[in-house]
């Protein structure tokens, strides 16, 4: 069973259920607010009320006598939501603002002074703690003014504390009776009943269209946040673009050889990356693979970031740019794949290694000394190598340094020294040829073995781990000096390394096999 009311709408009389009535009433209220500034607003409202009457009449027909909530809903569906109406001089943006206004209520003073007015914090209409709203009830000032005053106080300095104190001191609304007292109304049975109804209504209204309100709020948030995000992206975009342009500039300089970045100790000091690859890779077809593939990849990356940066800066997310991005990714993948293939093919050139025995010496003395052979080649020593092997070459040959020594115990009483050349290649024969082309100077003067710290091999052979090494057999009881240090065999073996490092040319170490 439901309570009903009588309404007179569109020159017709209807009996309408209570909840249907509140629904209708809130719709008409919002309607009034929507068109409050419009010239013909009374007429518009009248038209719509007539329309409601017409619709209700058609719904009721013969069988029913009371307008129910579903009827009102149906009528509202037909007429449309207030939010979708267009009032005069309202743009879409303003419309969305007015949609959110309807949830705010003005707090006017209720001067029904038939009761004691008490100061409560009005938590129903609060922004923070309801302090201002409560004060507005008590003082009879519109809440907006109270809030303005508080903001002024805030700026003057004491607003924050004052608000906090009031928040703590004054209680919030806990019952309908409180609400009545706040408004200064008498607390009687009737007023309490009314308050309960109002409370019920409030809950209903608050939960109604919740999903729609949430969407509207997020839309509003988006509208506010989006420009901020846009500008943030623009800034990022600028950084990206600047970085990419610098990257592309360097890439161009380095790849075209205008900027030589490979440090060498040769006459030129620095060579371009292409020349370096030529020497390292050797084989022309592999070189082309690596070079072109690498170029593609490097520049694809550059253009990729260029496009992304442009998109961020101009906020242009058009399809054309999207295709650009995708194609750059593709090019990059293809480019680097090609380079990788070239790399793999080159690595096959290191598959086999071969070692040649170049010459051997026998020394019948009490001690053997190993020292540096003064080299003719005066290399330009670059200041700090940091362990990075600088490229060393002249017109036709690479000049390498770093010779390995293996010290073992001699089976007889004589020193035996053997010099080896070794290299890698795609097969044994090729490796052997490359080893053959190595050139290294070593001289035996009395009991001193003079070793050139450098050795050479032709550039056309490419870098294939060409090495020079020595095996020195030391008889028991006899001494061998590697540089200034005596070689002591541990477990009958020891290793040594000769590098052209100035004072530290000779290094003895124990090789753990």
């Amino acid at each position: 069973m439901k309570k009903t009311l009588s309404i007179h709408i569109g020159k017709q009389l209807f009996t309408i259920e209570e909840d249907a009535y509140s629904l209708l009433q809130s719709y008409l209220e919002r309607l009034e607010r929507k068109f409050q500034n419009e010239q013909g607003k009374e007429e518009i409202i009248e038209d719509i009320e007539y329309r409601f009457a017409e619709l209700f009449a058609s719904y009721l027909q013969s069988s029913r006598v009371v307008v129910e909530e579903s009827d009102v809903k149906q009528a509202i569906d037909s007429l449309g939501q207030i939010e979708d109406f267009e009032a005069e001089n309202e743009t879409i943006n303003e419309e969305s603002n007015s949609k959110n206004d309807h949830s705010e209520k003005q707090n006017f003073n209720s001067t029904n002074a038939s009761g004691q007015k008490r100061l409560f914090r009005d938590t129903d209409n609060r922004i923070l703690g309801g302090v201002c709203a409560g004060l507005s009830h008590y003082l009879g000032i519109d809440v907006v003014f109270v809030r303005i005053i508080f903001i002024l106080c805030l700026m003057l300095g004491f607003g924050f504390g004052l608000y906090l104190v009031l928040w703590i001191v004054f209680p919030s609304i806990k019952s309908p009776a409180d609400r009545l007292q706040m408004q200064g109304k008498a607390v009687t049975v009737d007023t309490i009943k009314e308050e309960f109804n109002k409370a019920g209504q409030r809950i209903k209204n608050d939960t109604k269209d919740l999903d729609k309100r949430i969407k509207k709020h997020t839309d509003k948030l988006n509208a506010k946040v989006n420009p901020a995000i846009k500008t943030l992206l623009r800034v990022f975009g600028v950084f990206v673009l600047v970085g990419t342009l610098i990257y592309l500039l360097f890439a161009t300089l380095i790849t075209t050889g205008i900027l030589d970045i490979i440090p060498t100790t040769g006459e030129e000091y620095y060579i371009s990356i292409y020349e370096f690859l030529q020497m390292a890779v050797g084989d022309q077809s592999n070189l082309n693979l690596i070079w072109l593939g690498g170029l593609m990849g490097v520049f694809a990356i550059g253009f990729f970031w260029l496009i992304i940066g442009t998109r961020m800066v101009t906020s242009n997310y058009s399809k054309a740019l999207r295709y650009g991005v995708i194609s750059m990714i593709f090019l990059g993948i293809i480019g680097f794949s090609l380079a990788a293939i070239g790399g793999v093919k080159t690595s096959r050139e290191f598959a086999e290694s071969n070692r040649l025995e170049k010459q051997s010496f026998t020394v019948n003395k009490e001690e053997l000394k190993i020292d540096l052979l003064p080299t003719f080649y005066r290399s330009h020593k670059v200041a700090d190598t940091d362990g990075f092997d600088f490229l060393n070459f002249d017109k036709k040959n690479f000049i390498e340094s770093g010779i390995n020594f293996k010290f073992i115990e001699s089976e007889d009483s004589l020193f035996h020294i053997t010099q080896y050349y070794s290299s890698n290649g795609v097969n044994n024969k090729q490796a052997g040829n490359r080893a053959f082309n190595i050139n290294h100077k070593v001289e035996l003067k009395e009991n001193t073995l003079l070793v050139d710290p450098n050795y050479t091999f032709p550039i056309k052979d490419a870098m294939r781990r060409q090495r020079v090494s020595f095996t020195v057999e030391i008889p028991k009881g006899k001494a061998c000096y590697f540089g200034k240090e005596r070689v002591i065999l541990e477990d009958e073996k020891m290793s040594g390394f000769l590098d052209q490092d100035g004072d530290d040319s000779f290094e003895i170490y124990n090789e753990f096999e």
Partner: protein
Amino acid sequence: MFCIVHSFAYICAIQTDKMNIENTQAQMRKGILEFCILSILNSKEAYPSEVLEKLKDAKLIVVEGTLYPLLTRLKNMELLTYRWEESTSGPPRKYYSITEKGNKTLGTLQLTWNELQHAVESLTSK
């Protein structure tokens, strides 16, 4: 990291675009609606629901609530007039019809529409 920033930005951009597009679409509809209403009422008088039906038949979707204010505005601009018709099965209805002034305005709007149509066609047909 750039990919994350980028995708986030992409999504936000799509949101803004959507909103801007809805705005534009609404603006487009708004301008045309008055012209369409005048056209409908040019042939013969009708009450609001009839106008709505004709609009729906032409696949121009409007809510009733938008129609009433518009009709009232056009009436206040003296482009339309109405008369009350009593009805046996319910409340009286307003029958809207076009005025002389409305007729002239309709002519002007028709010319504007033709211009626009021409312009848009030639711009979008490439």
